[in-house]
Each structure stands twice: as C-alpha cells, then as structure tokens.
C-alpha cells in the first residue's frame, strides 16, 4: 500500500517551465549569465562584499590575539632574578602623540576620499546603461580622482608611521627595548602591512580603470576596496586607542 507524504510545494521558477528538474539558471539573481550574455554585477558585488566581511573576520582575529597578548603582558608580574619576587616591569612608552594624531587625520581624510570615490563610481555605474544609448551625453567626464587622493593620503599615512617609528627610536624605544615598546611596533607594523596591501589593491583598481574594463566591473572593485579601507581606518583608531588608553 503506497503511502505518499503530502506533496512538497515549491515556487515555480519564473521561466514558467513548470516543476522541478534541471532548468536554466535560476540562482543568484541571474548568476553566470548564460542566458543574456552579460555578467550579473549585482551578484558579484554582493559576493565580494560577503567575502570581504569574512576575510576581515580573520584579520580581526589577528588583532584580537595581539590585543590579548598585550593586555595580559601589561598586567603580568615577572620574576625579578635578584630579589626572587614578582614585580611589574611594564614601562609605558612615550608615544609621539602629535605625529600620530596627524597620521590619524591623514587616514581619516583618505577614508573620506575613498568613500567619495566609491559613491562616484556607484553613480557612474548606475548611469552606464543610459550612457550606452547612442547620442546621450551626461557631460560628466572622468570626475575628480578621489581614488588617487586616497592612495596619496594612504601613502602619506605610511610615511607618517615611519616617521613615528623614527621618533620612538630617538626617544630610546626600539623594538626590543621593553615589552611595551615591542607591542607598539608590532601592532602598528601589522596594521601598516595590511594598509599597504590595501594601497596595492587601490593601485590595481586605478590601473584597471585605465584599461577600459566596464564601469560596473570597476565599481565592484572600488566598492569592496573602499570598505576595506574604512575598516583599516577603524582598526587604526582602535590600535591608537589601545596604545594610548591602555598604556
């Protein structure tokens, strides 16, 4: 005696081709574009943003572990060989605050520039279909090179960090001088490495824009890189705050 469970109802795909089975692309809002020949930039953007969020989780874990090591080390009594007792040996680092504040300002402005670049290219991408209609001109030209400004300011930040390290050394705080100085160099250098990576990607984005790739494709790259850049700025605020307030 056959016992059928109640039939499962599913949404009929909008292609109107009836029930299940193997049918033309029906995922990701258009996915791989076999139907109409053009890639789905919306899906690509969403996927890249998701990938970025996930990737930034791992970057966060690096800084979480460094923070934990920092905080614990700061409070950890260490064995003083001479007296055979535990003592606190944490020496607060004399940070070049003015210089670091200038660097922070540079990074803030670069973040603003990155955001303006992102919005600019989003507008351009939205208008691209109209622009492709022959005879239509929106008269905007190339627009202000916000991306370039971001790269320059980001480079300026890195130069400023280098100067901060020189200043620290002048004040007697080298990498191995004390546990506190080790962490200062470590945290700021790890951030700088990630920022430098962001600059390389921005340069790639700038280069790609010269190669006449479709603006929608360039928009995806600039969008995701701008979000990465904002994260790098917030990360810097966090590191600066940690090094200053948890001295």
């Amino acid at each position, binding site marked *: 005696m056959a016992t059928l469970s109640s039939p499962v109802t599913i949404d009929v795909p909008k292609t109107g081709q009836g029930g299940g089975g193997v049918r033309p692309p029906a995922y990701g809002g258009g996915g*791989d574009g076999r139907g109409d020949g053009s*890639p789905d930039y919306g899906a690509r953007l969403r996927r890249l943003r998701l*990938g970025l969020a996930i990737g930034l989780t791992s970057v966060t*874990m690096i800084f979480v572990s460094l923070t934990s*090591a920092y905080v614990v*080390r700061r409070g950890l009594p260490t064995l003083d060989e001479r007296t055979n007792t535990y003592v606190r040996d944490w020496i607060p680092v004399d940070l070049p605050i003015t210089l670091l504040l200038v660097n922070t300002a540079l990074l803030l402005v670069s973040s603003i520039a990155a955001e303006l670049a992102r919005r600019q290219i989003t507008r351009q991408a939205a208008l691209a279909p109209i622009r492709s209609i022959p005879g239509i001109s929106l008269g905007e030209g190339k627009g202000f090179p916000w991306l370039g400004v971001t790269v320059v300011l980001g480079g300026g930040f890195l130069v400023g960090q280098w100067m901060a390290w020189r200043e620290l050394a002048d004040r007697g705080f080298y990498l191995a001088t004390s546990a506190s100085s080790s962490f200062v160099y*470590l945290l700021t250098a790890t951030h700088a490495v990630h920022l430098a990576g962001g600059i390389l990607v921005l340069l790639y984005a700038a280069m790609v824009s010269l190669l006449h790739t479709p603006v929608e494709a360039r928009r995806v790259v600039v969008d995701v890189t701008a979000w990465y850049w904002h994260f790098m700025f917030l990360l810097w605020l966090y590191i600066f705050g940690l090094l200053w307030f948890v001295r």
Partner: protein
Amino acid sequence: MATSATIHAHAPQGFIRKYIFSLDHKVIGLQYYFLALVAVFVGMFLSILMRVHMIWPTAVLPLVGEIKPETYLSLLTMHGTIMVFFVLTTAPQGGFGNYFLPIQIGAPDMAFPVLNMLSFWTTFVAFVVILAAFFVTGGAPLHGWTGYAPLSALTNSGPGEQLGADLWITSIAIFCIASLMGALNFITTTLDMRAKGMTMMRLPLTVWAWFVTAILGLLAFGVLLSAGILLLLDRNLGTSFYVPLVVVNGQIMGHKGGSPLLWQHLFWFFGHPEVYIAILPGMGVASQLLSTFSRKPIFGYKAMVYAIMAIGLLGFMVWGHHMFMSGMSPYTAFAFSLMTMAIGVPSAIKTFNWLGTIHGGRVRFQTPMLYAIGFVSLFVSGGLSGPFLAQPVLDIPLHDTAFVVGHFHLIMGVAAIFGMFAGTYYWFPKMFGRMMNETWGRIHFVITLIGTYCIFMPMHYLGMAGQPRRYSQFTELAYLQHLIPLNTFITYAAIVTVSAQLIFVLNLFWSMFKGPKATDNPWEATTLEWTTATPPPHDNFGGHTPVVNHGPYEYSVPGAPRDYVMQTDPATVASH
C-alpha cells in the same frame, strides 16, 4: 574581480591553464589531494625512522645512516607538522571540499576561483619551505610540532634551532595565509551560491562539515599567525614575548620578562580548533556514506547539524586542557576541564546517530562503506580516551605520555585518514570515471584497520605505565625496560601497516587508467554530484543549474519508485 560569473564563459585551453594554474575547483581539489598524498608518504617514512630508532637506537640505516637523539627529535617535529598541516588540514578540506562542495550545493565553481588557485599554490610554497628545513645547516628543528617556547625561541637550545626553526615558522605562517584564503572561499560559496531549493537544512552533511571547518579555520589560523610572528621576533630581533631571563649552557641570553605560557595559550587557542578541523570533514564523509550504504536517511539530521556546530563552538573553549600541567592556574584548569567534558556530548550524539543510521538499514559492503564503518570504530576508541585526559587529576599521570600519543593518533592519525580513504573510494568514480578495485580495497582496509589498532591501542597501556612521549630511546630509565617488548611489537606493526599503504597507492593509480568504467551514479546515491556527468564538465552541470526539491538522504522512501530519491528529482516524488 574575477568571480565564477566570468570564469565559466568557456573552459580554459592549454596545459598550463588547464592543469597548473587552473581556476577550476575540481583541478585545484585534485592538486591539494596529490600534495597531501606526497606529504603523507613523507610523514609515514619519518615515522618509520622514528619507530626503528626507538627500538634500535644505535642502528645504522641505509640512506639515512645513524639517527642521533637530536635527529630523532627533528624527525618527530617534522612528522607531526607535515601530517597535521599538509595532510589532515589539506586533503579532507582542500582536496575533497574543494572538489565537491560546489557540486554538492549546485554551484558552477567556488566563489573566488583565482583566490582558490592562489590558496593551493601558497600551500605548495609552504610545503617546499618546510621540506627545505631538512637541508639547511643544523637541519630541521627539534622542538616538536607544538613548538613550545623557550625551546623554540632560542637559537642555541639545540641543533636545528637556527635556520631550520625559522623555516619551520615561516612555512607555518605561509600555510596560515593559504588556509585563511581557502576558508574565505568555502564560507562565501556555501552562503551565497547554493542552487535554488538547496536550503541550509537540505545540505549534505559533508557540506555542513566543510562549512563549519572553514569557520573554525577562519577564526583560528589568524591566532597561529600572530603566535608565529611573535616567535620569529623573539628568535631574530631580540624581543621577549615568550622568553624570560634564561641561561643556556652557562650563557645568559638577552631576553627578559617574557612568558612561555603565552606561546602555549596562543598555540593551543589555534591548536584545539585545528584538531576539529582535522576530524569534522571525516565525520561528514562518514555520515554521508553510512546513510548511502545503509539505504537509510541519516538518523537525526538536525541533531547532526547542531552537533557539528556545537563541536565547532565548544572547540574554541577547551584549549586549556593541553595546559593542565603547565603552571596555569588550577582554577582555570577546572573550567577548561568542564568545557572539555561538555564537548564529548555532541561527539557522542554523532556516534549514536551513526549507529542509529545502520540500525534498521540494508547495509552494502563496498569499500567506501568499510572505511566509514572503520571510522566509527576508530572514533569511538580514540574518543573514549579523551575523558581520561580531560580530567586534570588523571592528566597528572597521563600528560606527555604515550597515552596522549595513542589518543590523538587513533582520532587524527587513523580515523581522519579513514575518512580520506572512504572519500577516495567513494568519489573516485566521479572524479576519474572508473572504479577502484574492490578486492584490493578490502585487503587494504582489513590490514590497515587491524594494523593501526596494533600500533596505537598499545600506546595507551604504555602511557599508563608511565612511558613519556618524545623520548628518542628507553635505555636510561629502569622502569621503562619492561615496556620495550610492547614498543617492539608496535614498531613491527607500523612497518607492516605502512608497507600495506602501497596497496592503496597502486590501486589508486592503476584504477585511474585501467579500472572498469564507472556509471554516473554507481553507488545509487542521492546528492548532487551523482546527478551530473562523469567526470563533471567544466561548469559542473553542463550549462544548466540544478533545482533541489529533496533533502540529501532520502533512501528507501515508502512509495518512491526506487530505493533512493535524488535531490533534484521532481517534487512530486514522495519524500520528507
């Protein structure tokens, strides 16, 4: 940015783009798999040298000559590192996961094919770097795969602790980056590229396992990377993260104020999730195969999913159980101990559910199933020695003894490997269009199951008797002498079992070229990889996208025309 949307407009031409720098997840999966195959033979060779030295410390062996105590420790270090990273973290996830995750969810590729290609080649570079450690002055490091500081942080603490140790750390750092890239890809793909109808609760348990494993990797490898950078700084730039004031051979080293326990915390915060990274994919494969070959849905699919998630989550809360004897606060030890006992619960649930799947089923004994059954047996054996070690008071006699070595080898060194064997015999027809030889598969299974039990079960007895681990020989302590016969037995068992792995390799390669041709679905299985051609076309589904109407384990559904309902069968076919 190149995503799968652009890549699969057309398949690549040319040898380099098809096989070397391929962006096709199937080729990349095979690249990972074969890298792991090379690594496992290197690792097994090292372990045989170790076992021979333990019994015959003064023996002069062909090719390698005499093995000095420090050489033994280098072999031990490299054996552990290569096996844990380049076998257990590579083949199950990078190999099978890469190949089959996209197909099982109905996607044409991974989310980021270029990143995928880069993650493999970065892993490859890491492998080359670690092998290089053998060939530099001083040789490979001797500080164990766990690399405790200050032993690993001082360049004069022993032979191999100079350039060899730096290469070891660098290789691991590169591997971390490769893993993070892979994890990113797996998670994005699973979240964003499932075919229509493939809800999360219709995912095969293999996909759930790869997904949660990727999350574990995403959160854990960054911490290992940090730990390694701090170690490189201590070793080379005079910092004192891990090293307090120490005197080595009468020489006062220039460090001060560092904490050796910091390394242990950072390492094990990564290290414990790492062992779950090693075992979860095998659990996924076991679930898949037990269901398929019992012709019965997996018992308690939802519970299995929650158990995987619980194991993943709790896996981050137990790292201190490696540190009960370390000088850590005993109160903290108690907390970690409770969490560790708790993580035994989802593992037990999975075991009950595997048994429940077989119960009332109709078991077919093809080779993949033999390995799945072997997996359950080994997981039970290896898992049940855990509650001993999880209790700090019992860890007092057992920590750093052969008991621990037996425990983690049964789980990682055998059960996880059985998961890989099972996956190989199961998916081989889909990957290569041919069947592996059943008879040789059976012989390989029986010898390996009995052999590995003969190697690793006795280690529990040795550990209880107080045999410490990482001893290059047992000539110095009177209380160890009566344990030498059992150690000798283990060595012989190891030689036989390792030799028997040649059967597998020969079967693998011979069948690739000469095995009987396979149909598209030789196991009469239900998941998406069995709906497509053999081997799958470049975009996995030949131009169309699957639509999913059923769960992954609809076997023996009452009223259905066959004893299996494929996930893409029309919705009108009866199922849950």
